[in-house]
């Protein structure tokens, strides 16, 4: 593909991404509106005095039609204003900024370990395809993959924090300074790593095994190209293309808030913010997060497609 072709591809994908994000935001707004009750009802809790609910509704301007509220919010967004929370009156940007720190930290740490571990295990298994090492790696990754994060988290906490007391069981109270307590991050990162490492190494292994069995690999072998060069310069890039897509999905998953890990280890990231906002029917916060998550997803997938294109140009890129 020529450079201009690539540019128009990126432009088309970005336009599509904007449309997708708008669609996501509209859908989220419609779904939040469709949920029973609104922010006033949620705030009133077990004291659903109708007069008080009406007063709260009026104070929050929830008595206006839905399309007006959406239009106001969209107009604000065009000016870069995400609006203010219904529940606390604080700006939505503050919610996102506060939640993003812990989420980004967890995602970065997980990714930094995931790439070497996932690729390393995948290559290792592919090199020893069908032999003991492959079988050990494959069965271990399959087994770990089968354990849900919550169960694994509880297990790790029980063993390493409560029985052995090597690590703190939660990050409670460290929310403002997670980096200052690195020990509290070990278990959450392990839990976050567990399943992505398995899926990534399986993908890398499968891609490399396929590539090594391909006619072109056989051909290079006949030419006397050294095995290491075949593996790393020819076979591995083939395995990287699907792995890059998988990585993008994993990063997306990590950045959009991993509620199970956040709840279990008391890390106040974006997942917690979203969960609370939905329970409180805090529409502006939900909407703001929908925009952030939408943009992240679009950008990450676009990045993955470009990487895949770079690695395996002959596969072409479908827009």
């Amino acid at each position, binding site marked *: 593909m020529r450079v201009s072709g690539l540019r128009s591809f990126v432009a088309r994908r970005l336009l599509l991404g904007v449309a997708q994000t708008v669609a996501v935001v509209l859908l989220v707004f419609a779904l939040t509106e469709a*949920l*029973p*009750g609104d922010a006033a*009802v*949620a*705030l*009133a*809790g*077990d*004291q*659903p*005095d*109708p*007069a*008080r*609910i009406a*007063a*709260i509704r009026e*104070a929050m301007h929830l008595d206006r039609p839905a399309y007006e509220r959406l239009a106001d919010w969209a107009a604000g967004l065009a000016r870069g204003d995400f609006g203010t*929370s219904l*529940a*606390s*009156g*604080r700006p939505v940007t503050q*919610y996102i900024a*506060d*939640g993003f720190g812990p989420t980004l930290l967890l995602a970065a740490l997980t990714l930094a370990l995931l790439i070497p571990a996932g690729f390393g295990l995948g290559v290792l298994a592919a090199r020893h395809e069908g032999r003991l090492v492959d079988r050990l790696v494959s069965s271990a990754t399959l087994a770990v993959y089968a354990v849900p994060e919550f169960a694994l988290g*509880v297990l790790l*906490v029980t063993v390493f*924090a*409560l029985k052995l*007391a090597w690590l*703190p*069981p*939660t990050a*409670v*109270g460290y*929310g*403002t300074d997670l980096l200052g307590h690195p020990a509290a991050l070990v278990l959450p990162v392990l839990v976050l790593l567990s399943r992505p490492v398995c899926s990534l190494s399986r993908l890398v292994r499968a891609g490399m095994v396929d590539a090594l069995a391909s006619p072109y690999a056989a051909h290079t072998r006949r030419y006397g190209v050294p095995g290491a060069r075949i593996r790393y310069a020819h076979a591995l890039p083939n395995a990287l293309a699907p792995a890059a897509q998988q990585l993008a999905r994993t990063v997306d998953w990590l950045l959009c808030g991993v509620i199970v890990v956040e*709840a*279990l*280890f*008391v890390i*106040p990231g974006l997942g*917690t*913010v979203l*969960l*609370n*906002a939905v*329970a*409180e*029917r*805090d529409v502006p*916060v939900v909407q703001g997060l929908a925009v952030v998550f939408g943009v992240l997803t679009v950008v990450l997938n676009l990045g993955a497609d470009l990487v895949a294109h770079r690695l395996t140009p002959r596969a072409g890129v479908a827009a």
Partner: protein
Amino acid sequence: MNERFPGLHRRGFLAATGGAAAALALTGCGDTEKTEPTGGTPKRGGRLRAAFAGGGASEILDPHLANLFADVARAKALFDKLADYGPDLSAQPRLATRWESNKSLDRWQVTLREATFHDGKPVTARDVLHSYRRIADPEQAFRAKASLEPIDLDASRATGERAIEFVLKRPTAEFPNILAAFGAYIVPENAGKAADFDDRPIGSGPFRFVSFAPGRSAVFRRYDAYWDGAPHLDELEFVVANEESARVNALLGGQVEYAHELNPTTARAHEGKGQIEIVRLRNSAMQAFCMKTDRAPFDDKRVREAFFLIADRQELVDGALSGAGEVGNDLFGKGYQYYAADLPQRTQDLDRARSLLKQAGAEKLKVTLDTSAVAAGFTEAASIFRDQAAKAGVTIDVKTGSKDSYWSDILDSGTLSCYRSGAMPIEAHISQRLLTDSTTNATKWHHKDFDALYQQAQSTRDRAERTAVYERMQRRLYAEGGFLIWGFADWILGTARSVRGVETKAPANTLDWARFDKVWLA
């Protein structure tokens, strides 16, 4: 008057409580008289970290907006009310030292004690009136607004630096309950808007503000000039952990010294094992089924009585509350002031239930029971009661609704629903839920003669006569009311072994619940 004890909110109870009739902890008398449940001489110093389920990034420190348990615990560390509830839910003096009414119970003279805000300024009558007017602001929807409704704030005035005359719209014998109402905290006159409370809240409470990160942590420090004696702790930190397992793990791992709201199964696993202390606040949250008395089939009092007799209360307590509680007798407020304890305990009687249903022409009755995961034990209670009803020939169809809007959904619709309530005075339970003009009358109990009895009680000066009127009201509710109150759940806390001075007889949201100024670290 509406005591706004919050009940359950998004993440569990806002307020629960149990008020075993215990010796009143003397308030305002320094620390010598009080018998400490865990013994020893108070030791000064240290930082206590307390884990609560919280409101996430939306948390605020404005005490008038307090909604969740965590909000209330923080509010009572920073602020004071004029009065607060003792273990039997009777009002105890706090910032007010004295209250006296006129003969007709519609004018009350309240005298304040000498206390100072954290900025050194004295707490005055003007601050009190400012606080109450802020709560009652018609533009706002503060939770305590309905509680303060009986007060005519335009006519009430300061009669001295520390003296206030409250003018009421009608006779209110239980006026002190209003002073103790949920969220009726006293803030300084210059306190400003809700947002200002986040940066530098100033109260007259035992702790002063250090820092606050919503949904994460709030750090407070001892206020040495506190009128009720400076706290033993140097510092108090509230941390938020919504997951119960996280609170328990943090406690077991030594990351916090106090964990609020634990499950009965957790309590059983750790009780008496020596690793942590389990504190059960008995007779806490009232557990009930709510029958709408204005519509079929519950508009027939024989059907209501049959349902009273269908319930096997012990089985419900064992199943839905995992045994952490005790049985109820279809009356609110077991162990509280004015509770009609002499009425015989009701037990299951399926034969009589069947015959009552037959008399009412309601054989082969089919009813839908609304429930939701909004409170611990709700869905379990619903399925247990469904099985019990089947034995009396009643088919119950359990319908599970959204937990975020549950209380609003069941207020007017449906016929039968799961219900719970935190602690509040019996009088408040009646005024909020059982009068024709009550704001949350979920049983649709509309009886002019019952309303009249309530007004009579509120106009009766003599305590014994008033008790007799409350008893008459409770007899009626016991015989034919809309609340099938089958139990009272324990409220369970966990503390580190070093924590002393945690009151065990204090229902949640009463004075001695989450009262960290009397706690110390051994």
